[in-house]
């Protein structure tokens, strides 16, 4: 994507002169693939300077950045200090490099202290190792915990079987109950904990650590008691030993229950409302969330973001601005009332003219946007007509009575594609979507729609509504998305009202504001159905 945009800038610079004279037809687009704005009739005689503050245009000319408004040369007899010089500060194309330009997982290039606080002790170097280490410890601990009751029961049989009292019915009953409880524990653990983690959080997950610590403490206590009291003394009361093992299984089941509550159930009751605002284009949404730590809330928000927010198309933001930061032409001041000492009037007139031009420029943005919307609508209408016409050409084999060529869906798609190719290309170009759709992809999509008997509108939906961000990740088939969490409090702390934190990925920044949902106090009001009588008063008399 980056390389594409560099090419665009070069092209736009070279063909600038051509574009100046090609604007008779307001409907036509450029033949160049990428166009940052329509050069309409009005701009035919003006020089267009693309003020894109992108770092990629470092090779561009910076010629038209400084303008001097001067008094006309014939008044050179006047003093020098009446020359009004206005300089537009040169647009340093590199100024963007000094601000936060973090992409991906780079956590060293930022000058933000906040980023450093949020990173915590673990650096990104040992990050993956620590994640797998934690998982390993958890796995080992759980395994030991699962096998401990069985070990408790088996060890006496191995070590001092002859001294043990024989196992009677109640003891065997305990075996049955222990095996069933272990089975249930196994199923519960599998259902709850054996899931691929959806996200990797920067800090340790406090609840999980608590659970593991609890399991560890239990195990240590039980084993200690077992070794000291039972193994060393070679206790022959087998029934007691089995009872002891069953109590450990019970304790594990209860820990599992606490785990379910802490990890899954506690945050279901919503407590906070989060407002998520996306930075470059200002899209926002509100979500309700329960009591969570900041990092877990951030992970949850990201899931919703990929489903709810539309794809961020950076090209769309630049559409109407092609005329905004434009020419500041030299003003020539002509005095029609005759010569005289009128420098004050001169300066006033120039100021008034430049102010007027500034106002006109602001209006231009509004008209540009309206114009763009109208153009999109027109292209869209044409596209829909073309698609519907194209789809009528296809008929299923058994419905068609004539002897025509038999094709499979891909061939059918290829045969009707040319009739809507032009309208589709134009629409994609105007909505700046053409990088996402190659011809093969379009034909593949068309073939799918044809083979499932979808209508033209269903086929067009993929282009008319680009959809949420998950479509984009699906298209590029990325397995892992890197996001940065910027927060002024430690991210394993719970959410608090009126806090804010940010999620960043390259250009896209999601600012999250936390708001507490108020406590609702409801009063009951009896509905008096007996007193629900009315009279009609058409004649009202009022005293004044």
């Amino acid at each position, binding site marked *: 994507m980056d390389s594409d945009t560099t090419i665009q800038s070069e092209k736009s610079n070279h063909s600038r002169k051509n574009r100046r004279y090609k604007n008779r037809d307001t409907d036509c687009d450029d033949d160049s693939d990428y166009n940052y704005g329509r050069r309409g009739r009005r701009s035919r005689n003006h020089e267009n300077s693309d003020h894109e503050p992108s770092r990629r245009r470092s090779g561009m000319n910076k010629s038209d950045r400084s303008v001097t408004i001067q008094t006309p040369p014939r008044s050179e007899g006047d003093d020098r200090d009446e020359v009004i010089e206005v300089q537009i500060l040169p647009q340093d194309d590199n100024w963007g490099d000094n601000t936060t330009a973090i992409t991906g997982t780079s956590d060293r290039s930022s000058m933000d202290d906040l980023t450093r606080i949020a990173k915590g002790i673990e650096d990104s170097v040992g990050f993956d190792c620590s994640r797998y280490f934690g998982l390993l410890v958890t796995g080992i601990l759980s395994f030991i915990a699962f096998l401990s009751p069985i070990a408790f029961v088996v060890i006496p049989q191995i070590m001092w079987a002859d001294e043990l009292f024989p196992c009677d019915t109640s003891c065997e009953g305990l075996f049955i109950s222990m095996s069933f409880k272990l089975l249930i524990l196994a199923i519960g653990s599998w259902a709850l904990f054996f899931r691929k983690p959806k996200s990797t959080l920067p800090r340790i997950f406090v609840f999980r650590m608590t659970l593991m610590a609890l399991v560890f403490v239990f195990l240590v206590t039980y084993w200690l008691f077992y070794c000291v009291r039972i193994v060393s003394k070679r206790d022959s009361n087998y029934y007691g030993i089995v009872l002891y093992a069953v109590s450990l299984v019970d304790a594990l089941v209860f820990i599992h229950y606490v785990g379910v509550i802490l990890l899954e159930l506690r945050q279901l009751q919503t407590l906070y409302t989060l407002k998520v605002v996306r930075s470059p284009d200002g899209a926002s949404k509100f979500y309700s969330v329960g009591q969570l730590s900041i990092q877990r809330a951030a992970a949850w928000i990201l899931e919703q973001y990929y489903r709810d927010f539309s794809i961020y198309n950076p090209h769309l933001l630049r559409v109407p601005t092609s005329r905004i930061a434009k020419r500041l032409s030299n003003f020539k001041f002509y005095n029609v009332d005759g010569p005289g000492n009128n420098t004050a009037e001169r300066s006033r007139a120039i100021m008034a003219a430049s102010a007027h031009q500034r106002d006109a420029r602001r209006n231009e943005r509004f008209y540009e946007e309206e114009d763009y919307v109208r153009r999109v609508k027109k292209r869209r209408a044409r596209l829909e007509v073309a698609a519907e016409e194209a789809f009528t050409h296809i008929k299923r084999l058994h419905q068609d009575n004539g002897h025509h060529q038999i094709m499979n869906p891909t061939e059918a798609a290829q045969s009707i594609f040319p009739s809507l190719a032009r309208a589709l290309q134009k629409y994609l170009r105007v909505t700046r979507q053409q990088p996402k759709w190659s011809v093969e992809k379009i034909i593949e999509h068309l073939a799918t729609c044809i083979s499932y008997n979808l209508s033209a509108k269903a086929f067009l939906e993929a282009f008319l509504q680009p959809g949420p961000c998950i479509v984009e990740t699906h298209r590029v088939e990325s397995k892992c998305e890197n996001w940065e969490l910027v927060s002024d409090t430690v991210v394993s702390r719970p959410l608090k009202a009126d806090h804010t934190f940010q999620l960043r990925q390259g250009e896209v920044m999601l600012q999250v504001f936390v708001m507490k949902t108020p406590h609702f106090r409801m009063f009951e009001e009896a509905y008096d159905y007996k007193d629900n009588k009315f009279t009609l008063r058409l*004649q009202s*008399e*009022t*005293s*004044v």
Partner: protein
Amino acid sequence: MSFVGSGIPCVEITVVKNPGLGFSIAGGIDQDASKNPFSTNDKGIFVTKVASGGPAELGGLQVGDKILEVNGYDVTMATHKHAVKLLSKEKETQVMLKVTRPSIIRGR
């Protein structure tokens, strides 16, 4: 005796608030005109009560008068609420009414 714009003969009465105006009105374009006791199916504003000794009586207002104008504002096509609002403006200490009666119309 004067004439309103539409040519109906009327009387000009000025009532000074003391503290109210001292009469009651009924009628209006949103009311049911078939029950009008003074003039059936007339949707105008009518005077239904005049407080004895009040400012309205002093000004010469009578029961059954139809008010045509209040301080220059036409109320022949006004809703009841609007007429009340015009009459009870707090800023004005007196109201100038143009009223008509059947006796005037008949020419007595």
